[in-house]
């Protein structure tokens, strides 16, 4: 539903953008058998060199054309009839992206006064001009190599500045990218100006083409040492670890109180991010959207317990059988998400584009600092709650020995319900905050699930503080290890450590050994 509203809205905006450019590039009239079309981008500017395929409704006629500098293309057809013009998505020039409706094409019945209007999206890009400053005089520098790498490691490309010092790199999707000037390959006599960074991490929103500045000067160049890089990664690792810990806490408490390994926990993470995204893109301010999402997901956790797990426990369903039920639930939920939001990456409306704040050698976007702070506060509060509150004590009692806890007057079902509600809310918060730094995607939770498991296992299954410590270790390990190993293999290292821990010390770093059967 949500997706459809967004789609209509963007269509409407596209139509407005089109109205703005009609007239500029459209010839007045056309012959009966001539099909005229125009190609514009999101800003309404003409796009040249775009290949277009025109086919007749019966498929007998097919012709290719290319848009000229005014964005116009003309095809002479065999005669009146229905024709479809679509963009040949494979051969479009760099810098634009073909949305689904332009790929599918627009249909026109000739003879017609109208032109076929196809709108393309702008690709995300980073670009800039490298200028060498001597005194007050600035000269462009050619041949500087600029490496662009996405922070999740899925994309990397290198550009070289031209004679005017200009460079541009088109990006595959919005997100966070690290842009680095290769200081070792700088031309003679040119260096990065002292006091400025040769490495910038930027967040690129949808359709944004962003200019970046790398000032050059004759002063001593500043090199980002391995130590600084490691420091940056440590901070990012702590952030990731804190977010993992939010999800891991719920998973661990659920395991502790019921013995259930919940494979659908990843979907609870994704649900939080998706609900927040749905509210936010439909106009609810982000903070309110996040709050609503946490509440809804906490409710969903509770409903899950009351509607599914409690009846199953009553039927004396085995734990392994219940584990397989959680897998079914995970597959079910994941593809329901995809059904509604599609398979692509989505981002929130708010807080997408932020400049990093420099703290010493570390650069962090304000939203990252905030999400770390929020996660830390919530984790401390939950920790205090588990230690000091009556409910927290009851939770630990149930985890220790459900039968004994029940015998001493604790309402075990109420405690378990509470744990599910809390787990749902914490997982949602984790997903919402993760959606800020990466993207919202239907399988973002499942991708994370094994890392959450790793955190829980490392700290000791079923212990709240173990989950916290274990997640921090996993977050740090995964992030910092990219100093030495290729980013696409960073999870391998975490999984390997998890396996080693399970083999050598199954009770985890903080677990007690008698817990193991």
């Amino acid at each position, binding site marked *: 539903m949500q997706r459809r509203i967004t789609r209509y809205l963007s269509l409407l905006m596209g139509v407005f953008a089109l109205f703005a450019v009609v007239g500029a590039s459209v010839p007045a009239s056309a012959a009966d058998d001539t099909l005229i079309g125009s190609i514009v981008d999101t800003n309404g500017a003409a796009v040249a060199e775009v290949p277009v395929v025109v086919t007749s409704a019966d498929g007998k006629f097919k012709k290719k054309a290319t848009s000229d500098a005014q964005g116009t293309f003309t095809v002479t057809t065999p005669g009146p009839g229905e024709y479809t013009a679509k963009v040949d998505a494979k051969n479009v020039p760099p810098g634009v992206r073909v949305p689904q409706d332009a790929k599918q094409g627009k249909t026109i019945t000739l003879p017609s006064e109208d032109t076929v209007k196809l709108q393309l999206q702008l690709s995300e890009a980073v670009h800039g001009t490298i200028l060498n400053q001597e005194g007050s005089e600035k000269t462009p520098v050619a041949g500087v190599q600029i490496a662009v790498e996405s922070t999740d490691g899925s994309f990397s490309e290198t550009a070289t500045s031209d004679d005017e010092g200009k460079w541009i790199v088109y990006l595959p999707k919005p997100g966070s990218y690290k842009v680095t000037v290769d200081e070792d390959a700088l031309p003679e006599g040119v260096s990065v100006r002292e006091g400025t960074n040769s490495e910038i991490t930027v967040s690129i929103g949808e359709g944004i083409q962003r200019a970046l500045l790398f000032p050059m000067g004759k002063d001593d160049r500043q090199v980002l040492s391995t130590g600084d890089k490691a420091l940056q990664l440590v901070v990012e690792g702590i952030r990731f670890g804190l977010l993992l810990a939010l999800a891991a806490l719920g998973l661990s408490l659920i395991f502790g109180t019921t*013995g259930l390994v919940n494979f659908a926990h990843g979907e609870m993470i994704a649900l939080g991010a998706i609900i927040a995204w749905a509210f936010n893109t439909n106009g609810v301010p982000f903070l309110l959207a996040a709050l609503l999402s946490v509440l809804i997901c906490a409710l969903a956790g509770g409903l899950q317990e009351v509607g599914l797990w409690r009846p199953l426990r009553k039927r004396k369903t085995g*734990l392994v059988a219940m584990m397989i039920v959680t*897998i079914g639930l995970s597959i079910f939920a994941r*593809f329901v998400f995809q*059904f509604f939001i599609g398979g692509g990456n989505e981002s929130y409306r708010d807080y997408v584009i932020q400049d990093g704040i420099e703290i010493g050698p570390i650069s962090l976007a304000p939203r990252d600092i905030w999400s770390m702070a929020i996660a830390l506060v919530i984790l401390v509060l939950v920790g205090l709650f588990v230690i000091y509150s009556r409910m927290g004590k009851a939770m630990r009692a149930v985890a220790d020995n459900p039968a004994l806890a029940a015998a001493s007057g604790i309402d075990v079902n109420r405690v378990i319900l509470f744990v599910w509600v809390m787990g749902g809310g914490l997982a949602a918060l984790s997903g919402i905050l993760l959606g800020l730094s990466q993207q919202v995607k239907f399988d973002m939770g499942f991708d994370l699930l094994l890392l959450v498991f790793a955190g829980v296992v490392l700290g000791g299954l079923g212990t709240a503080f173990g989950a916290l410590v274990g997640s921090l270790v996993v977050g740090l390990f995964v992030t910092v290890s990219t100093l030495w190993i290729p980013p*696409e*293999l960073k999870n391998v290292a975490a999984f*390997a450590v998890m396996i080693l821990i*399970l083999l050598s010390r*199954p009770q985890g770093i903080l677990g007690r050994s008698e817990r193991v059967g």
Partner: protein
Amino acid sequence: MDWGSIISQTLSALIGWEVVAYSLAAMGLNIHFGYTGLLNFGQAGFMAVGAYGVAMGISTFGLSLGMAVLFAIAFTILLALLLGIPTLRLRADYLAIVTIATGEILRLFFRSATLSEWTGGSDGLQGNPLFTQQFKNLNPYGGPLDVGPIFLTQHILWVITVGWVLVALGILVTWLLMRSPWGRVIKGIREDEEAVRSLGKNVFAYKMQSLIIGGLFGAAAGVIIALAASSANPDNFAPQYTFFAYTVLLLGGAARVFGPVVGAVIFVGALVFVDAILKGAMSDGLIPTWVMDGDQVGQVRFILIGLVLMLLMIFRPQGIFGDKKELQLDAR
């Protein structure tokens, strides 16, 4: 709606390579989980090793087809040993986590750009020279099969011929094994490991043998997938395929010799049928576009799989033909 085409698609799918692959994968799980009680969540890893063993053997190391198959078998046994030696002592839920993580590690390695020289990276290994060429050269069929509603291309016909022979062999092996003393010990381990140990049996060795045999079935499934698709692609071996194989196994009935095959036929048949019906209804305009569009049809089948897996496990854990007494699912 074109019922002829829907029925033709479904019938062709019933004997198609997907049924073969799911049967073999689920037969492996049947040995692991159904008979031995080992909760192996890394079957996709065994499938990947089978597929990549053959594909890399031929394309990367230049072996002949026969040698590549032996290489894949050796690779699989090595994986089973590496996986089994440390983990078979673990509790069911720990074993599940370790095996799923191992499957993911393998997939990430096969996917990684660093090793793409050998594995083809995320695009998978189509192979140069084409690794299916020798297999294609052996094809005894002169043309495609087009009998009544069933249509199969020449290549697929050859793949599924080999595949069904493997399935038949697998059924025979499973049946023979499970009525042998070895099978009785294996089932004993499933019911009560300590009791078997107290009779002086080496439980660990039996579990390991079971892991290797079941893993080989999984590897055979991977080989069939690689041959049918003419490529070994890492994303064909994502963890969800293990779970689909579990759905197949539980549909047909765990600890039943014919369970996996029956389950695979029902599973694939139902999915293809539902898919074709939905697409037909879509093109006839029977489903308004605000309910779903063409892209969303693909998701419906996965939603159904998830739902079926849940409902099966809750209401009929022994599957359609299983025996409830055979299946002691609580492994704690």
